[in-house]
Each structure stands twice: as C-alpha cells, then as structure tokens.
C-alpha cells in the first residue's frame, strides 16, 4: 500500500514536472518580433521607446502632447530607455517579444536590427508623405548605408551629430594662442597651453570607451582620405592615416592628463568642464555642458580642420539618430502618423534645439535658433558644404561594434601606453575590418 502511494506521488510529480516543461515550451511560440504586424485602424494606442530616455524625456513629452492634441484618437505610451542599454533592450524584445510600435534607432545599431528583420522599410512611406524631399540627403545616405540593404531606408532620420573641436577662448587668449582652425595651430596650441606642474593641459584625449571612433575622426580629418574602402580593403591603415594617428596619440601625457587613459565621453567632458584644459574633441552633444560650465563667451566649437589649408574638409559619418517603425506593430498607420509628426519641421526643430544637434528636416535649417548656436551652425554648414567629403563608416557590418569597440579599445590603450605602434594598431584593425567586409559580402 505504502509502495503504491509512493509510486503515485512519483507519477504525480513527473506529470507536474512535464506540465511545467510543456507550458514553458508552449510559451516560446510567439516571439512577437518579426512580421505579424498590421496596418491597424490608425486609432488607439501606440508605444514609443525613446533610445535616449531620461535626458530627452522633457522634449519628447512636449512632442507627444502636441501629437495627441492634433490626433485625439491616438494615445502614445512613452517609454524612456537609457542610451547605454538600448541595444540590449531591443535585442531582448526581438528575441522574447514585446517590441514597441515606434522606437528611436541610431545608425550604430541599425544593421543589427535590420538583420533580425525587426524593422519595416520606410522608403515608400517617406515618398508618400509630407516628408518627401525634406530630409537631409547626407543623413538619408547614412541611414541607407547603415541599413546594409541597398537603397532601402529602415529609419526616418531625425538628427545627426558631428565631431567638433571645442576650445576655451579665455585660455587661448591668456596664452596668446591662435584658434585651432588648422592642424598646425591645433598641435601648437596643445603644447602651448600645457603646464603639467600646474595641472594645466592643452587637450584631453579619449582613451576609454569610444576611443577608436574618436581616433578615426581625427585620422581621416588630418589625412584627408575621403573613403573608408579602396576596393575591398579599408583605408584605416593607409600610411597617411597611420601618420595622423601617431601624431594624435603623441599628445598623450605630453599635452594631456595621464588619467585620460580611461576616459569615456563622460569623464572626458568632466575633465574639460572641471579643469584647466584648452581643447576637447567631442560631438555637438556636449554643447549644453560646456555652456553651463563656462558660459557662452568662454567656449567655442568648430568643425575639425581640413587636412591642409584650402583643401576640402573630410569628416567621418557620425551616427544618425532616427525613428524606426517596427514590423510587429499592430497599428502601423498610427505609428507612422507619429513618426511623420515627430520628423516634421516644427517638431524636428524643437527636438534638435533641445539636443543641440543638426536637424534632419531641411526646413528646420533656416530656423532662428540655429544661427544663435554657433557650433551647430558651423557644423551644419560644413556638413552641407558640397566640397565636404564624408567618410561613411561601415555601420552595416554586423561586427562593426565588436571590432571598433570591444576588440580595438584595449589595443588603443596599449597604443597610448606605447606598448604597440600606431602601425601595428592600424594594421590589426584593418585586418579585422577586411575580414568582416569579406564575410558580409559573401552573405549578400
């Protein structure tokens, strides 16, 4: 009798366990990611994930309030995602379900999302909307290139950033240095403004997270090489780029604090705003921090100088921010209405004014606030100058982030410490990029 009870208990336990496994397994059925979406009625609720949540929350709340006022039958649920983790949040939702209808998508991770079939192509929708012909062609090209699917666009560009050379006008004046409008002036000023004993430095270099992207900005701007690929080989290790890299990293410890070795952008900006440092190379995004720290009259931002006087300026394509429409959306009509509204002249201008970046809507380029923010105006002029050469970085490579960040940033620190040469660094980076490009081409 006792044995029977034991057997029954075992059987019950086994059935219960099997049921748990079965329920768990059936739960894996609907991933909710690719496909399965619907145009919907154009009314009801949509969810929007902000990829720079927190910092941009107030401006998005304004835009959403305006949108809901004009479209009373659509409710937008705003979800702020911290920028540092947005990619993992998207990846989890793609794998596990629960993607939003609309999301902020940067070109740095656009290819990854396109490869996972999470985003709806938006080229045709743009053509049939009020946005037709009103989006910056440079940014549209960056979005096309980053998507890696030919001429198709997988996000509507909303803004772009650009590498900017920030300098302290008060320190330059005191030291009698010329503004860094050429590379010779830049290196001269870096030395002139340095007095390590007094803890004063001419420049702060990015040695930690994001160091390689910034180094590429500096290399191509100095070398004047205007394309990332020559055939199937990258130009990263071109002798001119290697020479420029050598010169750039040569500033470390000579004209920069030693602690720069671990600088990510936050530490680098903090170094600049808290200490006596003459110059900083960062994008337009830190403008508000500089103004808050020094006031408008003591800091200036200019585009990176051309390789030689009279030469065209060479800039590296900075990530373009945009809005993506997700394939899994059950209400694509309403979601598109929201994207169209957010990228419209008035809203795009408002957003970029708050962010201090370059608007994608060309109608916004003539707005009054741009002429008041000198660095944005200068960046926009250089970007829209037909002579400017834009080096398109291969954001479309699935391995781009790994190669340019996880794999190369530790090497960049070795380079700063003098453990490897600029050529060794550039050759290794080029080797990885060439392999990734070959693999990508094979998969096309």
């Amino acid at each position, binding site marked *: 009798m006792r044995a029977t009870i034991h057997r029954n208990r075992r059987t019950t336990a086994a059935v219960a366990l099997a049921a748990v496994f079965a329920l*768990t397994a059936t*739960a*894996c059925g609907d*991933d*909710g990611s690719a496909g399965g979406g619907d145009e919907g009625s154009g009314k009801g609720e949509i*969810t929007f994930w902000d990829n*720079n*949540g*927190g*910092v*941009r*929350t*107030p401006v998005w709340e304004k835009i959403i309030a305006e949108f809901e006022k004009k479209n009373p039958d659509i409710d937008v*649920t*705003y*979800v*702020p*995602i*911290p*920028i*540092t*983790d947005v990619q*993992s*949040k998207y990846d*989890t*939702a793609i*794998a*596990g*379900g*629960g993607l939003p209808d609309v999301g902020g998508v*940067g070109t740095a991770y656009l290819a990854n999302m396109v490869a996972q079939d999470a985003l709806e192509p938006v080229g045709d929708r743009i053509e049939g909307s009020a946005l037709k012909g009103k989006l910056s062609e440079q940014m549209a090209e960056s979005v096309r290139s980053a998507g890696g699917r030919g001429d198709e666009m997988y996000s509507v560009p909303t803004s772009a*950033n650009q590498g900017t050379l920030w300098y302290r006008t008060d320190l330059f004046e005191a030291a009698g240095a010329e503004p860094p409008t050429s590379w010779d002036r830049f290196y001269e000023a870096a030395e002139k403004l340095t007095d390590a004993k007094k803890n004063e430095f001419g420049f702060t270099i990015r040695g930690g997270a994001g160091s390689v992207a910034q180094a590429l900005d500096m290399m191509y701007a100095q070398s004047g090489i205007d394309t990332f690929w020559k055939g199937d080989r990258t130009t990263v290790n071109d002798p001119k780029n290697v020479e420029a890299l050598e010169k750039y990293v040569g500033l470390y410890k000579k004209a920069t604090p030693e602690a720069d070795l671990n600088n990510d*952008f*936050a530490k680098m*900006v*903090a170094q600049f705003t*808290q*200490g006596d440092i003459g110059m900083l190379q*960062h*994008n*337009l*995004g*830190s*403008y*508000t*921090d500089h103004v*808050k*720290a*020094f006031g408008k009259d003591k800091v200036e931002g200019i585009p990176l100088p051309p390789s030689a006087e009279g030469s065209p300026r060479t800039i590296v394509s900075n990530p373009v921010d945009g809005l993506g429409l997700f394939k899994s959306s059950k209400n694509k009509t309403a979601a598109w209405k929201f994207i169209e509204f957010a990228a419209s002249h008035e809203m795009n201008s408002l957003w970029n004014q708050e962010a201090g970046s370059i608007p994608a809507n060309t109608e916004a380029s003539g707005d009054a606030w741009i002429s008041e923010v000198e660095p944005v105006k200068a960046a926009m002029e250089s970007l829209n100058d037909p002579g400017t050469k834009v080096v398109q970085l291969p954001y479309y490579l699935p391995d781009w982030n790994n190669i340019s960040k996880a794999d190369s940033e530790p090497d960049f620190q070795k380079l700063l410490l003098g453990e490897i040469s600029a050529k060794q660094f550039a050759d290794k980076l080029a080797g990885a990029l060439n392999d990734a490009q070959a693999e990508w081409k094979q998969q096309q």
Partner: protein
Amino acid sequence: MTAALAETGDRRTAPPAGTPVTPQAPRRRRRTRAFDEVPRWQIYLPLGLYLLFTLVPFYWMLLFALRPAGSTSLVPWPVTFEHFEKVWNERSFGVFFQNSMLVGLATLVTTTVIALSGGYALARFDFRVKNAFMLALLCSQFIPGALMLVPLFEIFRNLRMINSLESVIIAETVFQLPLSIILISGFIKNVPVSLEEAAWVDGCSRLRAFRAVVLPLLRPGLIAVGSFAFVHSWNHFLFALMFLSEQDKQTIPVGLNTLIGADSVDLGALAAGGVIAAVPVVIVFAFIQKWLITGFSAGAVKG
C-alpha cells in the same frame, strides 16, 4: 581532565563550579601586550589611508551633488539642493525610490521565508539527492542573470507580468535563493538539534519548536541573508530595465542610468541621484552591521 581541557583551551566542557579559569587569562594578557607594543601610528595610518581611499568617491559624489552647476570649487559652498530637487521632482526619483523600496522589501521577505524552509530541510533532513541538490544550488551561482534574460522575459510576457514590479521581485528572489538557502542551512546546522528535541519532548510540534527555539537563535543569520537580499535587489539594474517599461514602474538603478545621455551628462543630477540611491544602503548597514558580522562569522565557522 577538566584542567587538561581547560589548558588546551577546549571549551566544549564547562569547568565545574568554583574551578578558577586561570589558563585563559594570561593568553588574553599576552594578546593585549602584543597589541600595545605596536606603535599606534602603525595601526591608525593604514586604517586612515584605507578610510581616505574609501571616502574619496563619496566626497566627490557629495561635492557634485551639493555645489551649484558649473562650480569648480573643491568645497560644496554655497550649498545647493537644486540637483536633489531636480532628480526628485523632474526626473521622477521620488517614484523610482518608492518602487525600489517595494522591490527590495518584498525580495527580502520572500527570499528569507523561502530560504528558511529550504535551509531547514538541508540542515535537518537526510534525503537521497541532498548532495546533488547542494551541488545544483552551488552551480546555479555560476549562471549569469543576463543568460536567463530572454527565457525569463518570455515567461513573464506569457504570464502577462511584463511591466509589473512582481516580475522583478520574482526574478530577484529566484536569483538570491541559492546562496541564501546555503547560508541559512549553515546557520541552522549551528543550532544543536538537542534544543529542538527538548522542545518536542515538552510537547511542541516541529513547526512550533522551530518558531520558538530555532528562529530566535537565527537572528544574525536572518539579518545577514535579508540585508543581502535587500541590498542586491536595491542595486540590481538588469531585470528592472528589461521587465519594466513604463516610467512610473522603474527603479532607482534604471533612473540613474537615464541621467547619462548619449553625448552629455548632468553630473550634478547624477551625483544627487547617487546620494539618494546610497542612503538606504548606508542606513541598512549602519543599523545591522553588528548582527551582520556575527551572522557571517557564525555561518563561516561551521556552515
């Protein structure tokens, strides 16, 4: 025999009443003398340096939190609370704080209660797969939370629990339990079974004996496990980020991360947020450190 045991320092058997316990005293004196022979600076200098090393980050955090934006002064003067007002009111840290407190306390309670039952079973019962179970508990510590993220996300989504604090509480509890069970079982093993047996003889049920006899003796262990569970869930970022979407459901660690933008950081607000995040943890440790140290040493000796 008693004298011999006393000389060897074995305290298992108490000396008979009236026996002078002389062998213990000289040893204590020797230790004190050795301590006294060390110049004070050799003790206080390393301690002072260590303290300085530990406190400098807190100093920077308080400095940035309390001085006005744009100031480069090394002293937070004039003191301003503008950053605290900003994060608490404008950046919803008041809501995040409430949510974090709820998640932390709920995780503390659920983890402690379940770990008590599991730990008791491991300490008091012999069953066939006990060693394998212990091994499984230990091995589960090697699985990073990030690896379980997608399956957990799917399970919670199918249970319609995404965007609810309960999902975070369950996930936190599940990940805290293995270590908590192992710790609690160590504490319970330290309580002699004879105490429980005496209670049974007096007519107590197993549960009553556990509540009346064992539980009061586990206080240091419970505090150690509970505080670990609270502090860990208070600081944990990943589950809250992935399982919660709406702003009014977010917790402090996620809120802190939203203060770091793509290209700009409001250092004053970030520091003020850091102070708000650190205060409960500091208070918890200030109140429980006495029991915490007792708890760890008790668990460590015979666990």
